[in-house]
């Protein structure tokens, strides 16, 4: 009898690459050779996989805007993200807070007219539909906190950093959650190495980013605040992590800022932009011995003019501008908002690639974009329960 082992690897990989994700992952356990081939296919698919979740705020009741999410992709439907999102949409007021390497930090608020509404967090892998509930977080006074998800694909654990703007310039307040211990830490006061405030950023998702064990947040004036969370694991840990204030390249009043990842997510990317240009900087550090010295390296400067000439005319009218809204952590790609949609700018090739005409909103406004690297390998920790 003939066997599939007679097929050469290219043919087998061709077959595997056309399988739905669930079937593909199952093929890992067929044989050792198949396991290797599946890994290759998953990796090559990750390169190709491209999609984004667009958040729009639409008018639900008079005066009340609620977020709505839509998954947009130019890849053929290997993943059914819509169904993952649909299943959670219907229950409570749902919101995507942050994303980190393919995982989403979400919250659901149960509106209670008699008492305060209760908000719960959970982490979702929309590719696999896997959900992990997070225990109730300690109450926080300030409603303007940023929730940051910290996840390294090499581990199966994640951390959540709830970072309050606080009332003082010299410190801010932070709660930590680690999925390894499954508990929230006591509240920490992190002292800023110099006085700063946190701006109220409209595109809140890009005002913070998690890179290599460190959470960065945009601050005023001309700064970033960085907290090293790699050592924060348990609630017994008595040491408050220090918050380092890093000065960013010069700015004027007309310039906006956001954060992203560079080099496959290994380095921090800082973007500043105004009506005429976008600049991308990468943070390089020298001499880590206690006193790290930061150096900003300008990687790219994009003139808005050059973008205007290459964009399809249906996407914009004359004089409209491009606004960076996200950065793909797996590849060097910048996602820009235009008047009539979203375009992707390939930083390696210095040209626009792919566009999503998604902003035709009757009542409401566009808020933010979550970009998707592929991450099906995140597995379910022991404590996983459906929230």
């Amino acid at each position, binding site marked *: 009898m003939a066997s599939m*082992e007679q097929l050469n690897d290219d*043919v087998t990989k061709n077959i595997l690459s056309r399988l*739905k994700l669930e079937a593909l992952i199952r093929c890992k*356990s067929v044989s050792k050779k198949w396991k290797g081939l599946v890994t290759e296919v998953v990796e090559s698919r990750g390169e190709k996989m491209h999609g984004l979740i667009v958040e729009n705020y639409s008018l639900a009741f008079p005066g009340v805007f609620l977020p709505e999410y839509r998954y947009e992709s130019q890849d053929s439907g290997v993943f059914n993200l819509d169904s993952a999102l649909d299943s959670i949409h219907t229950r409570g007021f749902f919101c995507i807070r942050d994303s980190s390497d393919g995982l989403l930090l979400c919250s659901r608020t149960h509106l209670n007219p008699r008492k305060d509404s209760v908000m719960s967090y959970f982490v979702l892998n929309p590719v696999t539909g896997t959900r992990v509930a997070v225990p109730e977080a300690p109450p926080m006074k300030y409603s303007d906190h940023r929730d940051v998800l910290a996840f390294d694909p090499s581990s199966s654990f994640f951390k959540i950093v709830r970072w309050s703007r606080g009332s003082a310039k010299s410190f801010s307040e932070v709660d930590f959650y680690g999925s390894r211990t499954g508990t929230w830490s006591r509240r920490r006061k992190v002292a800023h190495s110099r006085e700063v405030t946190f701006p109220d950023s409209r595109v809140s998702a890009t005002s913070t980013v998690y890179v290599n064990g460190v959470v960065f947040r945009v601050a005023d004036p001309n700064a970033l605040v960085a907290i090293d969370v790699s050592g924060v694991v348990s609630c017994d840990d008595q040491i408050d992590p220090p918050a380092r204030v890093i000065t960013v390249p010069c700015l004027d009043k007309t310039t906006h800022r956001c954060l992203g990842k560079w080099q496959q997510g290994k380095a921090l990317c800082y973007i500043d932009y105004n009506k005429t240009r976008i600049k991308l900087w990468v943070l390089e550090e020298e001499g880590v011995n206690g006193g790290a010295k930061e150096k900003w390296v300008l990687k790219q400067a994009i003139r808005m003019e050059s973008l205007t000439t290459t964009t399809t005319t249906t996407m914009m009218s004359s004089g409209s501008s491009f606004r960076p809204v996200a950065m793909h952590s797996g590849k060097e790609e910048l996602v820009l908002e235009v008047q009539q949609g979203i375009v992707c700018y390939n930083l390696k090739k210095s040209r626009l690639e792919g566009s999503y005409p998604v902003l035709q909103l009757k009542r409401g406004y566009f808020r933010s974009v979550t970009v998707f690297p592929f991450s099906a390998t995140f597995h379910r920790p022991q404590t996983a329960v459906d929230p």
Partner: protein
Amino acid sequence: MSESTEKKMVRLRSSDGEVFEVEESVAKVAKTLQDMLEEDCADAVIPITCVRAPILTKVIDYCKDQVMISSSSSTTNNPNERTEQERKAWGQKFMEGVDSSTLCELLVASNFLNIEGLLNLGVDKMVSMIQGKYPQEIRDMFNVVNDFTPEEEEEIRNQNAWAFERDPYYKKRSSSK
């Protein structure tokens, strides 16, 4: 037989020794044979060492059909030209009743002979056969040897539990603990 004087014939020998005589145009659907014929190194019988006679018959059927479509598509308004839908239906019918063992051999043959269309048909069929199956079923169907230790296999399953949740074999194991 009067046509055989006009059309050049090519002879192919399967791995089990059977000789097939086909028109050159039919053989040329296979890129590998086309290259050989164009280099003029194939006057005698061409040995197809890795393909058995029943498989070669099926391959030749496919090639003949391709020749029929392409020869008629040069004329306008040809009745043999297929729409996308018809092509799909034809492909499905062609692969109907092909078992997993024959399918493997067909894939080996179309890959060796470099017939892209047939390879794609085979791959599609294979994908539809694997899609809803679990590892043990796939191994049985395609004769793949499980070279994992039970512990190694368990580890892969645990790491990707979400993909195995509905596996009857998996359920049995975890509930017996």
